[in-house]
């Protein structure tokens, strides 16, 4: 005998033209729903014909399902259907963007427990409901079934100008209830500038491997690492740092002296005498460091955002967090890295080669969010997590060592976050030609090949 499908009601928060209804009336109607689940529709459009059956499968299959949202579709200007693909549930992204979309399914017992919709928050009331539900729900699921067909292109979570103060209040309440944070600014386009705050002032060890040699740019002699450290010293606002520079034996003493002059007692120099092994150098730096947090950094970077450490550290301090990363730009103002993407058997960078001010799919380059990996060109992680997973594998001296590290971190049950609030230039091509060797592929894919396609938090081709 097949299990009984829980009852479901559909309630529209908007009229047929997609305009928000009287919310006092809607809130009262919501509390009168007698079915076990309610689907709240908040945009003009239609539920697909198989909505009830597909949602029914979820309701039957997962006893603890409290909230469910789905992918959508709308007809584009050329008449072709355009999918709206969403990431899986991500509490940190939700505080930046109400990305659940046009139809959200709630368990009615949860709605009642929350006291229903707070109509006084008008255009922010549905966002408020989702945020409060996210704090109380046992399980929030996302189905990649496209169960809603919108009348118009979707601008997820867009709000009217007059409702921005209410959005701010809702977000401030949410942040206060979830460990603290700051709402810098709410925006009508639905992407809100919010962030977590650093707890305490833990020591961060910035570990930089370097050859320590001069480079020549248009005939001008300069040291990448000295330039990188100077940019940090000049701009960075977080002061509880130490530098652990792992340099090669061939390093120029003049460069090491310049680093000493720049950093003073906060510098620790460690010599690397073996052949090139990025992972080995980082490990050597880690065991020679003192910080509670390790910030792995390439030597060919230049800081852009003064609050880069605060942004990454606040995310790395979240419960369960194992790592955080940042936005990297190439010298030509294109994106190099907005998180790792694992797509159809390959590992690459999200956003690569897109112009600097690109928003990305669903504004993904503008929001703090979960990712499955970040580049070791700039990554921050708790010291305890680094040692828990065995640091960076020396089996991968040049390529994919960061992919491997991230895989180990997530395998160990930790989350990885990415933030656009920390950004740097990465002059990667200047220092190394990334020739991939077969054994590197064998090692990385031998370990993680089956996980090299994972669209949960970035469901777009990369």
């Amino acid at each position, binding site marked *: 005998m097949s299990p009984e499908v829980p009852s479901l009601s559909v309630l529209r928060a908007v009229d047929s033209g997609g305009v928000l209804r009287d919310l006092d009336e809607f809130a009262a109607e919501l509390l009168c729903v007698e079915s076990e689940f309610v689907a709240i529709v908040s945009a003009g459009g239609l539920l697909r014909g198989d909505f009830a059956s597909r949602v029914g499968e979820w309701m039957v299959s997962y006893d603890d399902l409290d909230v469910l949202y789905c992918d959508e579709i709308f007809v584009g200007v050329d008449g072709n259907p355009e999918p709206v693909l969403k990431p899986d549930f991500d509490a940190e992204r939700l505080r930046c963007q109400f990305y659940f979309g046009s139809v959200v399914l709630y368990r009615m017992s949860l709605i009642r427990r929350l006291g229903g919709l707070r109509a006084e928050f008008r255009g922010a009331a549905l966002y408020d409901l989702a945020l409060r539900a996210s704090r109380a729900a046992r399980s929030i699921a996302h189905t990649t079934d496209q169960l809603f067909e919108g009348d118009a292109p979707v601008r997820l979570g867009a709000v009217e100008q007059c409702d921005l103060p209410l959005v701010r209040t809702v977000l401030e309440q949410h942040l206060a209830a979830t460990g603290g944070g700051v709402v810098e600014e709410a925006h009508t386009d639905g992407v809100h500038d919010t962030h977590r705050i650093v707890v305490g002032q833990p020591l961060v060890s910035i570990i930089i491997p370097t050859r320590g040699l001069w480079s020549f740019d248009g005939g001008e002699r300069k040291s990448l690492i000295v330039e990188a450290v100077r940019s940090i010293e000049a701009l960075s606002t977080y002061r509880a740092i130490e530098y652990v520079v792992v340099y090669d034996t061939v390093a120029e003493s003049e460069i090491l002296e310049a680093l000493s002059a720049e950093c003073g007692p906060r510098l620790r120099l460690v010599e690397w*005498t*073996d052949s090139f092994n990025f992972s080995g150098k980082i*490990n050597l730096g880690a*065991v020679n460091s003192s910080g509670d947090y390790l910030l792995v950094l390439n030597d060919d970077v230049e800081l852009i955002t003064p609050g880069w450490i605060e942004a990454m550290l606040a995310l790395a301090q979240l419960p369960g967090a194992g790592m955080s990363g940042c936005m990297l730009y190439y010298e030509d103002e294109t994106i190099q890295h907005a998180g790792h993407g694992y797509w159809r058997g390959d590992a690459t960078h999200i956003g690569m080669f897109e112009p600097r001010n690109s928003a990305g799919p669903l504004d993904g380059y503008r929001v703090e969010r979960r990712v499955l990996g970040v580049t070791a060109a700039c990554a921050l992680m708790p010291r305890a997590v680094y*040692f828990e*997973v*065995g640091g960076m594998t020396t089996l991968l001296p040049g390529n994919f060592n960061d992919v491997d590290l991230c895989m180990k971190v997530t395998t160990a049950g930790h989350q990885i976050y990415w933030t656009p609030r920390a950004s740097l230039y990465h002059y990667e091509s200047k220092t190394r030609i990334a020739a991939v060797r077969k054994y590197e592929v064998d090692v990385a894919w031998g370990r993680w090949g*089956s996980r090299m396609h994972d669209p949960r938090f970035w469901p777009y081709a990369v």
Partner: protein
Amino acid sequence: MEGERTASGSLVSDSSASVGARALHPAINTAKEKSVTENSQAAASIEQQLRELALVDRIFGLEAQLAEVSVFMNPDRDRFDAQERELAGLRQQVEGLRETRTWRVGRAVLAPLNALKRKRNE
């Protein structure tokens, strides 16, 4: 530049841990000897930590490889068993490493130094 060469050949330099010529005053000599001992222990501890990182990494790697083998292949029983045995051996090595006197002494020496360093940076 003064420093101490670790077993792997890395020269670790730290202004707070210089190993220089002996001073003449006995009290200073004693302090220096203590410093040399502490530095040796610190270097040994660093080697131990690097070894531990490598072992833990190998464990993660083998576990992942085992998962890959079982996901993608009709498992080759002999290969599977061999990797499981290697994994068990590595786990024992990590436990053994953490039981050694050097590791414990190294930790004991480094912990207060690190705490001091953190405090200094606060």
